[in-house]
């Protein structure tokens, strides 16, 4: 397995102090290679969302180590000063609901991040169009989010997550609101994008339809992860 992608060693997260302390994550070990899509599954309250927030640099883990690409980003404390810049440059997010910005059209929803970081608008839009074409929504580039179907919205959200070519994408239940056909389409897109952009993708899911498609799955229970080989069923 490549040394890039993301590697997590002994990650823990404790909420509260003293008698009221809760260990949401006790010991998490994970490794996702570039171009790989892994599943993260577990029952409610198992620590999936906490792990996602830790990986997304949204909350502070209590201990452990995270290495993104060649950079140690957490080692019993953050090793990068600007977590917002880390999220912007290195991590893409795809949510259960697309959460597109309702007052921007499809192109600008995708191009927003590079535009906000100083890229000329035309260049950012050209990049967005390239991604939207790859995701087969190029025919809706001028539409507003409210005019899109659920599947189209999710594809636009994936494009937004990929626009900065991040080495890591965190997808939180991306297929939950979709029917079986669309869910498979989204998984196919995620796999294609992972391969095309050498991106490590972690998909948190409960969705029985897509679990058999993963080649590797991390089960999380009581804050501890267990690796398992998945069926790797074809997405065709």
């Amino acid at each position: 397995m490549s040394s890039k992608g993301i590697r997590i060693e002994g990650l823990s997260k404790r909420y509260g102090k003293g008698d009221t302390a809760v260990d949401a994550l006790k010991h998490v070990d994970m490794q996702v290679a570039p171009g790989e899509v892994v599943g993260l599954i577990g029952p409610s309250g198992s620590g999936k969302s906490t792990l996602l927030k830790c990986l997304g640099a949204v909350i502070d883990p209590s201990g452990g180590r995270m290495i993104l690409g060649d950079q140690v980003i957490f080692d019993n404390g953050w090793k990068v000063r600007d977590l917002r810049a880390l999220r912007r440059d290195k991590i893409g997010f795809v949510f259960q609901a697309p959460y597109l910005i309702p007052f921007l059209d499809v192109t600008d929803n995708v191009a927003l991040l590079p535009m906000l970081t100083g890229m000329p608008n035309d260049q950012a839009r050209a990049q967005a169009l390239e991604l939207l074409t790859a995701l087969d929504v190029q025919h809706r580039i001028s539409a507003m989010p409210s005019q899109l179907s659920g599947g189209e919205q999710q594809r636009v959200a994936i494009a937004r997550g990929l626009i900065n070519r991040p080495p890591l994408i965190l997808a939180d239940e991306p297929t939950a609101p979709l029917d079986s056909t669309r869910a498979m389409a989204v998984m196919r897109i995620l796999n294609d994008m992972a391969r095309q952009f050498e991106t490590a993708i972690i998909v948190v899911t409960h969705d029985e339809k897509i679990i058999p498609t993963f080649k590797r799955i991390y089960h999380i229970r009581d804050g501890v992860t267990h690796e398992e080989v998945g069926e790797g069923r074809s997405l065709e």
Partner: protein
Amino acid sequence: MISLAGRDILHAWGKFVFTGIGLGLLIGVTLVMAGVYRGMVDDGKVLLDNSGADLWVVQKGTLGPYAEPSSINDDRYRGLLGMPGIAQAANVTYLTMQIDRGDDDVRAMVVGIAPGAAGTPGWPPYLIAGRQITRSHYEAVADIASGFQLGDRLDIRRNQYRVVGLTRRMVSSSGDPMVFIPLKDAQQAQFLKDNDALWQNRRRTAANPVFNRAEVPGLLAAINASQETSQSVNAVLVRLQPGQVADQAAEAIRRWKRLTTYTRPQMEAILIGKLIATSAKQIGMFLMILALVSAAIVAFIIYTLTMDKIREIAVLKLIGTKNRTIAAMIMQQSLALGLIGFMVGKITATFAAPFFPKYVLLIPQDSVVGFFAVLAICVLASLIAIRMALKVDPAEAIGG
């Protein structure tokens, strides 16, 4: 760089425009209030300008004739005319009263002007229709704001007057239109009692043995005549010869004639500093309250609009948008709302001003100050929403 605020406004333009119109009406009221104050100040200045005087000679120890009652004998002007440096001196009376106008009545300041011609202090300096007063009695020149037309007949006390001329912007310091009548008529209107009162007075005088002496024939008639005529006016308006220094001339009158005399700056200070001071404070309070209400409305609207976008803000923060970008979006929306509000307010005030019963003077300086005040209020009002937006946890976008 993309303007998030601009896109949001374009997306929800109806909400912004209607909110801006509501805010604009409030700003319009604020601008009109400022215009009312400016109008009061201007009315005071116009009153002094139109009197054509350099000095106002009034009863000793009073702030007359506009701010306090003042009464001096109507022959004092002769003595003033004999003083060095004085070109013209004319008696004048002022009486604010209700004058019947058809089925209605109008509040007006009746000005008694001394015999003379246009250019005499106290006379209306210009007419827009008709002619100046040429007869000693029963003619009037009215400000057009009084509603009188040429040829109208109006009743002042016991006499009837015919409007022979119309003038414009001749108002009292309270904004009441002026009606000019001959001085003798005005003195009578101001001081002469009604028939019953005269009859009662004569009876009392006749019953007094001191005044009604058989050995002095004519005494009672002389006393009655002196009680029934008036030799008083409210002020003497003085015009100086060219090159004369008003302060020196005023000091000479104070010293040698023992009358209180005001120069133009002193009279302006009385009118603006004393007569309309309370009204100015009242308007100032209203302006302050309106500014606070505007700020509260803008703050509430921007807060609500931001609350509606909490999820989007959480997503923006999660994907790495800088705080200053989010703050700028909220502040720009607030400023845009203020801009729409100001434009609506300015247009509303401009079109509404002529319909106000008193003079409303909208000056560009007030508009500029108002514009920057609105922007400052919008910036301040957006701070609450910005504070809330910056406290949004990006983890809210992930849920769980």
